[in-house]
C-alpha cells in the first residue's frame, strides 16, 4: 500500500532521526503530501533557529501559525510559551500567575523537569487536533511534527507514558494519559524515521527503532533514506584513468549502497529513498523532492501490495 495514503489517515506524524539528515525537509515534503491528499495539515518545527519557513517560502513564524499553501500551515513552536499558557489557564488569578511564572522554582522546573517540555509540544498538537484552539487559528486534521534529533526524539515519544507514571492526578496527568494513548495507537499516530545511507545515521536509526520497540512497544511506520548520491556511472575501461569527480561519485555511491544493503537485514518496515538534488534549500527543492517522494512511494506500493 502507498505509504503516503497510509500516513495521510493519521492525526499525528512524528518525524525523527539524527541531526543533519534532513528531518525538516522531509517534514515539509510529508506535510505537502498529506495536505495534497485532502487533510488540513500543520507542520510544526521545534527549533529556536527557524528553517522551515525558508523551505516553504513563507515569512518566519516566530511562534505563530502561518499559511503555506492550500490546506497547509507551518508553525515554529516555543515549548516554553505553551507551558506558560498552561499555567495561565489553570491559575485564573493574575497576581498568582505572575508570581508563579516569575518564581525561580518555576523557572527551574520549566527548563529542567523531566518530560515537561516534550509534554508541552505534544499537548499543543493534541489541543489543535481536538479543536481546542484560539480564535483565528485554522482547523487541523493532521499535525506533522519535525521532532528534535534522535535521543530527544525518543524522549518526546516516551515522555507521556513516563509522566503518566510519575504524575497520577490532575490536568497534567489526564493530558499525559491521553497523549500516551495517542502515541500507542498506530491508527492515529505515525512515526517516520529519517536517515542517510551513511554509517552513523543508519546506526542511530537502528538504535531508535530498538528503543521504540522497547519503550513504546511499536515500530516506526516509515523509514526515509535521504540524500542518496546518483546510481554509479559505468566502470572505466581497463587502463583508462578515471576523472576525480567520477571516482568520488562512485565511491560515495558505493558507501550508500553498502549501508542500504546492511539495512535490508535489520529493518523490516517500508522505506522510501530520496536523491540528493542539485538545488538550494527553498520551494523549488521542496517541489522536486515531493515528486521524488511520491514516485518512490508509488514504487514501494507496487512492490508490497
Amino acid at each position, binding site marked *: 500500500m502507498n505509504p503516503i495514503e497510509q500516513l495521510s489517515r493519521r492525526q499525528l506524524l512524528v518525524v525523527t532521526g539524527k541531526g543533519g539528515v534532513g528531518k525538516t525537509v522531509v517534514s515539509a515534503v510529508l506535510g505537502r503530501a498529506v495536505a495534497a491528499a485532502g487533510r488540513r495539515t500543520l507542520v510544526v518545527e521545534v527549533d529556536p533557529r527557524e528553517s522551515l519557513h525558508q523551505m516553504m517560502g513563507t515569512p518566519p513564524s516566530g511562534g505563530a501559525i502561518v499559511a503555506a499553501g492550500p490546506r497547509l500551515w507551518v508553525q515554529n513552536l516555543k515549548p516554553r510559551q505553551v507551558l506558560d499558557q498552561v499555567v495561565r489557564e489553570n491559575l485564573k488569578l493574575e497576581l498568582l500567575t505572575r508570581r508563579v511564572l516569575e518564581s525561580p522554582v518555576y523557572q527551574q522546573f520549566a527548563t529542567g523537569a523531566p*518530560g515537561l517540555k516534550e509534554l508541552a509540544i505534544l499537548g499543543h498538537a493534541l489541543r489543535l487536533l481536538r479543536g481546542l484552539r484560539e480564535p483565528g487559528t485554522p482547523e487541523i486534521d493532521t499535525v506533522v511534527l519535525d521532532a528534535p534529533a534522535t535521543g530527544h526524539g525518543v524522549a518526546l515519544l516516551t515522555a507521556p507514558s513516563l509522566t503518566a507514571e510519575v504524575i497520577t492526578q490532575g490536568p497534567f496527568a489526564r493530558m499525559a494519559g491521553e497523549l500516551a494513548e495517542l502515541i500507542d495507537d498506530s491508527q492515529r499516530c505515525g512515526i517516520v524515521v529519517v536517515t542517510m545511507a551513511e554509517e552513523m545515521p543508519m*546506526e542511530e536509526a537502528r538504535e531508535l527503532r530498538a528503543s521504540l520497540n522497547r519503550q513504546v512497544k511499536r515500530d516506526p511506520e516509515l523509514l526515509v533514506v535521504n540524500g542518496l548520491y546518483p546510481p554509479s556511472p559505468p566502470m572505466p575501461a581497463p587502463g583508462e584513468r578515471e576523472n*576525480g569527480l567520477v571516482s568520488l561519485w562512485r565511491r*560515495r555511491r558505493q558507501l550508500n549502497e553498502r549501508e542500504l544493503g546492511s539495512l535490508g537485514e535489520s529493518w523490516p518496515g517500508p522505506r522510501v529513498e530520496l536523491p540528493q*538534488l542539485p538545488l538550494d534549500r527553498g520551494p523549488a527543492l521542496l517541489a522536486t523532492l515531493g515528486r521524488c517522494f511520491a514516485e518512490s512511494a508509488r514504487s514501494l506500493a507496487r512492490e508490497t501490495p
Partner: protein
Amino acid sequence: MSLISGRHPLVIVVGSGGVGKTTLAAAAGVRSAHEGRDTLVMTFDPSMRLKQALGVGEEAKLREVPVTLDAPGTLHASLLDARQTFDRLIERYAPDDEARRRVLENRFYQHLSGSLGGILEYMAVERLFEVAADGRYGQVILDTPPARQALDFLEAPARIVGFLESGALRVALKPWFDEKGRLKATSRWGPLGRRAERFLDGVVGMELLRDMAEFFQAFAPLFEGFRQRANQVEELLRSPKTQFVLVAGPGEERIPDTLFFARRLEEAGYHLGPIVVNRVHPRFALEGAPPPSADPCRPNGWELLSWAGERDRRGLIELAKLLSREQPVVDLPLLPDEPTGLASLDALGRQLETRVAEWERYVSRTS
C-alpha cells in the same frame, strides 16, 4: 596557533550534529600520540566504525581504555555517559548505604531524563575535570554532544551555580511536607496558599513534588561540594590553555549555525581556535561532462557534484567574509570513504595539521 601543538593541554571539539566531530577528535588524538604526548580522547557516542578503528568497546564507559598504537605517546579512549558518571558520583559521595539507596531508588532520580538545572550534563564536565586534574595525560581531547546540547553542556557549570544560588534549592530543601505528607508551607499563605496547593497538586501532582523534595534532601550533602567544583570547572573551560575547535558542515546553509556557535563561544569567554569546515565537495574541471539529466529526480553525478562543489566554495567565501581576519578557518575535503582504522585516522589528522599550517603561512604572508 596549531590544533594539537601541546600548547593547549585541553582541546574541546564542538559543532552541529553529523559534521564529523567525533572522527576529527579521534584523528587529532592519534596525531597527538604520534607527537609523543600521552593522550586521552573523550567522546560521547562514537560510531561502531570509530570504536572498531580505535579498538575500544563498552568497557570504555567505565574507565579509560588504552588504544594499541605504535607511537611515542600513549593513546587512551573513554566514552562519556552522563548517567553512569552520576551513579558513580553518588556511589562515591553518599555518606552511607542508606543514603545511597535513597537517591538511587528515588523515582524522580530514575526519571531524570531531562536535566534539572543541568545536573546531568554537569556530570560529564565533572568527569572531564577529574581527568584534567589528575595530570596523567599531556593532552586531553574532548568531543562534545551535537549542537544545542553542546552549549547546554558547556553552560552546565554556570547553570548549576545559578541553580544553587537562585534560591530554588533553598526552597526545595525546605521541609515542605509534614509527617503526614501534607504541604506545610502553604497553610501560612492563607487562601492564596490553598490555591497554590491546589494548583501544584493539579498541575504536577503532590506525589512528584514529594519525590523531588526527597531527592533534593537525599542529595543535599553533595551540593556544597558541587558549587566549588563547578567554579573550578568554569575556570578550566575558560583557561587560555583550553582551546575550542569548531567543526562545521559545508555550504551556505550551514553558515548561520557556524556563526551562532562561534559567537556564543566568544561571548562566553572561551578561546576559539580554528573553525574546521569539514566534508567540503572539491571542485572539478567539467571537460567531457554529459548534458544534465532530463529527469529532475535522477540528476547525474556530474551535475550534482559540480553543483555541490560550487555551493561549498561559495559557503567558504561567505563564511570567511563574515568572520574576523584573525579567525582561522580551514577546510577539509569530503573523503571518498570514512576512516576505518588508525592509519586512515592518522592521515586525516595530518591533513588537518597541514591545512592549519597553510592557513598560518597564508596569514603571515598577507599581513
